[in-house]
């Protein structure tokens, strides 16, 4: 491994300073050493030509499902990492709803061992809030943190017991772990398979009202206020949740929030025709919610864009809508969709970069996400002009359940560095697409 590397000639996007401009980035011994004007950072390093490319701190996805252990037919840590790198992510935080559930130091260690064997992106496990995700008894946060978790969450199985959630928020303070919450009241959502509204009525599908999310967000904000715990609201999907979070933050509640690319681009109309790749929890909502989420991502009420990458086998999606599994993959489409938000004027490039780097790094307490000297030498180099079409067959994930099949994208990660080492480079066939456009 070359000890000194100069990423030269690129356009550096600094999410902390909020700037975009020509600069070189020097990485020494796997860590950022300096960012400076072209030619000023010394000649003694190996040079990586970044001309024509955007240089960002390595992207971090705070919310993925890697499915291993237990559901390797959907995804493995190795295939998930490959998908992450192809999408420009140098780090991912993986949820605990594996089999066995990641509710112990042993499972956390297993995940980290598999990630080390896979190589490439950094994998940060998230531990369960409750043993077996059963919502009955706290999992051992301390043991899991010693093994390497960065947060706790019962994602996928909302914690209905308010008493348990109160103690989780309180106890997590001992370890300064954020409690990541999937907000969906199971009684209100019972049997629902999409957003409750005009579209669900027309299709004859049972709906999940926006209130199913909002009553839980309101509850947990009150509990965070009561306990002083750190609450991170996963995949916010409604305008009402945004308003609750904004108001709570204003009165000093320790709350952060994330939105997914699919909730920022798709509405419940996508379900018309019973497309099972438009089925997820929380469900796609109407346009007014999408607009509220976009505004919240722009103004920082939502400081994280996370994919909720949820691979499912074809057989789990090629069924009747109500029988289909919840969730979509997202690692390989998140960055170009983010760039589309920039192109549409929703937010500027440094703000987008912040939502994908320093935002999640702060929530999860990770050292990455910035270009500060001493930060990990993780960089994502993006060709902002690269045009490509989403073909599910070409994705690196083991699963194909994307709602964005056929979408024309502009922009793509072409070189990814982790610890100063190139771990991913776009292959030729995709480069050829550039001339085809």
């Amino acid at each position, binding site marked *: 491994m070359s000890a000194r590397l100069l990423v030269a000639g690129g356009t550096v996007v600094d999410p902390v300073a909020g700037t975009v401009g020509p600069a070189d980035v020097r990485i020494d011994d796997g860590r950022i050493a300096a960012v400076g004007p072209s030619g000023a950072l010394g000649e003694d390093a190996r040079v990586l030509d970044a001309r024509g490319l955007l240089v960002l701190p390595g992207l971090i996805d705070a919310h993925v499902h890697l499915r291993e252990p237990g559901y390797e037919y959907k995804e493995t840590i190795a295939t998930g990492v490959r998908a992450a790198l192809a999408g420009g992510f140098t780090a991912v935080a993986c949820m605990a709803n594996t089999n066995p559930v990641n509710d112990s130091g042993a499972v956390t260690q297993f995940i980290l061992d598999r990630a080390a064997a896979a190589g490439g992106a950094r994998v940060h496990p998230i531990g369960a809030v409750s043993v077996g995700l059963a919502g009955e008894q706290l999992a051992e946060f301390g043991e899991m943190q010693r093994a390497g978790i960065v947060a706790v969450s019962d994602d996928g199985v909302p914690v209905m017991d308010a008493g348990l959630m109160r103690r989780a928020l309180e106890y997590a303070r001992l370890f300064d772990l954020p409690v990541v919450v999937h907000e969906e009241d199971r009684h209100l959502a019972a049997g629902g398979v999409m957003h409750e509204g005009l579209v669900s009525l027309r*299709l004859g599908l049972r709906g999940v009202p926006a209130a199913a999310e909002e009553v839980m967000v309101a509850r947990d904000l009150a509990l965070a206020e009561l306990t002083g715990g750190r609450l991170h609201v996963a995949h916010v999907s409604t305008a009402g949740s945004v308003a609750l979070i904004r108001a709570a933050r204003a009165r000093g509640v320790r709350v952060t929030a994330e939105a997914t690319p699919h909730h920022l681009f798709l509405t419940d109309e996508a379900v018309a025709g019973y497309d099972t790749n438009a089925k997820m929890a929380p469900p796609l909502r109407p346009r007014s919610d999408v607009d509220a989420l976009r505004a919240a991502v722009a103004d920082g009420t939502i400081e994280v864009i996370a994919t909720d990458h949820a691979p499912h086998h074809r057989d789990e999606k090629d069924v009747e809508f109500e029988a289909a599994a919840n969730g979509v993959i997202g690692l390989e489409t998140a960055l170009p969709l983010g760039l589309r938000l920039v192109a549409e004027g929703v937010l500027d490039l440094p703000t987008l970069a912040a939502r994908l780097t320093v935002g999640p790094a702060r929530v999860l307490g990770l050292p990455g996400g910035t270009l500060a000297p001493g930060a990990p030498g993780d960089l994502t180099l993006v060709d902002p002009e690269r045009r490509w079409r989403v073909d599910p067959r070409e994705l690196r994930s083991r699963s194909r359940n994307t709602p964005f099949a056929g979408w024309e994208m502009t922009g793509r990660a072409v070189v990814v560095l982790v610890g100063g080492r190139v771990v991913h480079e776009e292959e030729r066939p995709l480069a050829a697409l550039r001339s085809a456009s």
Partner: protein
Amino acid sequence: MAFTQRHLLGLEGVPAEEIGAILDTAASFKEISERDIKKVPTLRGKTVINLFYEPSTRTRTSFEIAAKRLSADAVNITASTSSTTKGETLADTARNLEAMRPDAIVVRHPAAGACHFLAQHVSCPIVNAGDGCHEHPTQALLDLLTVRERCGRIAGLTVAIVGDLLHSRVGRSNLHALRALGARVRLVGPPTLLPREFEALGAELHTRLADGVRGADVVMMLRIQRERQSGHFFPSLDEYSQYYCLTEEVVRLAQPNVIILHPGPLNRGLEIASEVADGPYSVIMSQVTNGVAVRMAILYLLIARSKAEDAAEIEEAAEPPRRRGGGRA
């Protein structure tokens, strides 16, 4: 005649002219059922599969008789979704049926969208005989035929649909078709079963039975499902019937020449009083008769259309290439 549908998956979005074409065809087929020999050779050599994942006597029998009166071979398959959990997926069932080369598949399934799903997996026409809480288009068509016969028109009529609108596929199909044909539609039921979003589909909403029925030309009663009690939609069947059972007293609020429809089977004394169900304004038996005619019309129109399409494709494939090239020049 304007009929362009490949399948009959629902009535939402089907234009008025096409609904009219189905009703006209059905009206012309009614006479066949009055003959001594109730059979015409129209669909001889055609195979219709009735694939029913829910118990049904009336609808399945009606489709079977319709196919047979047109000389098609009708095959009934009674499947259960519980048995498919250990066995075959709907996609696999579709592929297997497809391989047997049916000319149409009539499907009833407890999942909304199951007919759309099948239509994506097979090439022959799919007829929706009820999919979950989505649509039941042939029931609505037979209701429309009955209304048109009795009232002479549909445009301008005031039609009250009463009951569990939230879960009713019959209600949805009727709402779409009645609106397309220019009727004024009132939906009547308890607030728990009457989502406000129905207004966006052009309906007028009423929670009081008397308000909904007052001045109506047509009252369509929906069957109440006993299992809805467990979903907290209403406290008890007894209380439901106190507020929403169609009695003679309520019928008197409607137009004097009102007609009463019900898709059956009846819950006598629950959503409809026996005196009303058996009364002079009840057209329930006409609905059943018209059901056969409407289903004959649908099978005929869909199969004839897909046959015409196949013929066009064959003709096209047989054309010598130079003629096509000539066409372009």
